[in-house]
């Protein structure tokens, strides 16, 4: 199996990546139909819009309450987990998280890790790090397994291989797995993958998983999955390491129920997943199975930057359902790789600047028409367009300007030309006299409209002012009326 590559598509090249993705007709076709399918599934899972509204309001309230008490809930979580026999580790950076996990595996001379789906492990590029130290990390979620085999990264947070066609997967399995005949039969493909993974669970020294909800009250790690691979990873190997972001904590078990329902229905239109794991500690004396050691790594990686700002804090309400991506007209045309970030689509545009800095995500806040489809479906009501506008402001704010909570990379997209253009715009539009003169000249000089207008004329005929402004037409009509 190949090792995980380093970032394939740096987000600094977003525009080039997007252009390449748009030209890939096979990708465009499969993405579009996949997103249509997921949108239809979601909408059929919420037949009652009043119930949906109420549930979203509840989901938002729960997430906001938990975030408002985040520091104390994290303390409580650590305390309860410790009491349950789970060791809690804190990591501020990806490097620290990698070091912690590597340390745990190395302490047992481990050489093989099986992994349940975890986007946070993608965020820290764990596989890459472990393999550099001679430890193989094998993805066991079918989608992750496919992208790992292809030497790629996930393009979607819920469906990592959604960009791949059946034929591409068939070819991949045929080429990479020994003695595998070419087949496009989906069930057969899944069987092939599962058989290959079976052995690995038994041989693995360590299982890694993500966490969907970490319950502070009881010290419980909840894991939502459909394939059973998550349960295998968290029960078969002797050592289980869970990793998650600090924002995933909820106060009590009761909070999980509505969030879980919102998550599965928004993500893939499922009323409930096939597996729901509640992990509350290692194997106890007398128990026949389960890991002998359980660890939780809590990662910050820029989340506390978002947390510090009341408005941007809402970003952390996210329960990673992927609905915003499925409904995004930009994501559904360019796919996840183009973003060059672990989290693509609308949620990626608003969270990545905190994880990577605005300097590395310069083009992401503007890569949206602000159509609002994301905010409309977000199960926890994150006002994503509002977050995008705020990030646009921060990325244009001069680097030296003092603000209460400066963002990493403030001013990364600041441009003197643009700032001057907006100031000129203000001068014209905030003064009726100047505006009138501007309108008069623009209409009189319409023949001089430039035939190419940056960006615009790539897709349109030039914008040409009308012969007279509405202001003038109204004045003329009033004058005519007075005469008659």
């Amino acid at each position, binding site marked *: 199996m190949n090792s995980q590559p380093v970032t394939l598509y740096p987000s600094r090249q977003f525009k080039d990546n997007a252009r390449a993705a748009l030209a890939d007709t096979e990708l465009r076709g499969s993405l579009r139909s996949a997103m249509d399918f997921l949108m239809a599934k979601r909408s059929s899972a919420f037949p009652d819009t009043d119930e949906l509204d109420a549930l979203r309001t509840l989901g938002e309230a729960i997430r906001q309450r938990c975030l408002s008490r985040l520091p104390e809930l994290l303390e409580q979580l650590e305390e309860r987990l410790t009491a349950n026999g789970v060791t809690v580790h804190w990591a501020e950076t990806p490097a620290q998280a990698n070091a912690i996990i590597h340390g745990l595996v190395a302490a047992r001379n481990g050489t093989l890790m099986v992994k349940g789906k975890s986007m946070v492990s993608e965020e820290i590029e764990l596989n890459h790090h472990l393999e550099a130290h001679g430890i193989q990390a094998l993805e066991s979620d079918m989608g992750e397994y496919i992208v790992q085999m292809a030497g790629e990264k996930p393009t979607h947070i819920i469906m990592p291989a959604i960009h791949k066609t059946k034929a591409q997967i068939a070819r991949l399995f045929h080429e990479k797995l020994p003695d595998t005949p070419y087949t496009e039969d989906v069930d057969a493909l899944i069987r092939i993958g599962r058989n290959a993974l079976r052995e690995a669970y038994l041989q693995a020294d360590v299982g890694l998983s993500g966490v969907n909800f970490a319950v502070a009250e009881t010290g419980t790690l909840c894991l939502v999955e459909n394939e059973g691979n998550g349960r295998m990873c968290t029960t078969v190997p002797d050592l289980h390491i869970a990793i998650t972001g600090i924002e995933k904590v909820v106060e009590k078990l009761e909070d999980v129920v509505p969030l879980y329902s919102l998550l599965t229905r928004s993500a893939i239109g499922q009323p409930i997943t096939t597996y729901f794991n509640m992990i509350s500690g290692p194997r106890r004396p007398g128990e026949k199975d389960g890991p002998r050691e359980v660890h939780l790594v809590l990662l910050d990686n820029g989340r506390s930057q978002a947390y510090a700002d009341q408005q941007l804090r809402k970003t952390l309400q996210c329960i990673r359902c992927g609905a915003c991506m499925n409904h995004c007209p930009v994501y559904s045309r360019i796919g996840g790789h183009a973003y060059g970030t672990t989290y693509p689509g609308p949620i990626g545009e608003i969270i990545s600047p905190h994880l990577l800095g605005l300097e590395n995500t310069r083009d992401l806040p503007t890569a949206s028409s602000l159509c*609002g489809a994301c*905010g409309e479906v977000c199960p926890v009501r994150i006002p994503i367009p509002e977050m995008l506008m705020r990030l646009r402001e921060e990325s*244009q704010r001069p680097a030296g300007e003092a603000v209460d909570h400066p963002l990493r990379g403030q001013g990364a997209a600041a441009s003197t030309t643009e700032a001057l253009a907006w100031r000129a715009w203000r001068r014209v539009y*905030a003064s*009726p006299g100047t505006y009138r003169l501007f*309108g008069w000249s623009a209409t009189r000089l319409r023949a001089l409209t430039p035939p190419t207008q940056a960006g615009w004329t790539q897709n349109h005929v030039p914008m040409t002012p*009308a012969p007279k402004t*509405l202001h003038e*037409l109204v004045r003329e009509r009033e004058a005519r009326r007075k005469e008659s």
Partner: protein
Amino acid sequence: MSRPSDVYLFGTCLVDLFMPDAGMDAITLLETLGIRVHFPQAQSCCGQPAYTSGHPREARDVARSQLDLFPGDWPIVVPSGSCGGMLKHHWPTLFAGEPEQERVVAIAARVVEFSDFLLNHLDWQPVDTGPATRVAVHTSCSARREMNVHTTSWALVDRLANVTRVVHDHESECCGFGGTFSIKHPDIAGAMVTDKARALEDSGAIEFVTADAGCLMNINGKLALDKATPLRGKHLASFLLERTGGKS
């Protein structure tokens, strides 16, 4: 909802400069229904272009220059969903904590999108005098999601006896305008408007209407570049006026 005797029209900067006829048609249509329309000559723009581009200070200054233009308590009718959304929903945010906040909130409460006004405030009952035709409707994202008026344009078109409204593929999807988005990301915006134009063409519509100047400029600008298609869009106000014989 009571029927007002007078309204203000906030024409919007795009209509003013690029499609003033749509603004005139909106005025004429309202006047034929017995409404006095006041068009403050000092109006310019709601500030949206700067606001959505990350320049709230410039947006606020421009918005501030508009605050004195609506002294009466009449409704402020806006023939564009996205500018309506700016006035109604973003102005209060933009002025939060500013001395003008209270006034802005009061102004915002009086803002009504054009199709909403016609349908829900006037209960417009047209007599369709036009020939039979097929029309597609593109609803702007702001009308749909900020102003919550995505069904009003449909309802108005459906009241025209000789007009068949056809639905186009992915009707609820954005046309890719998004203000500076279409200039900053022309590849992505281009793919979006291409799909929108194709969906409208494939719908079998003879023309399409929209109540948003930005979308109209975007889609028509794309269709005109393609040359191959005769399909063009009209502002809803122009279409409705034309159908009811009010267009001279």
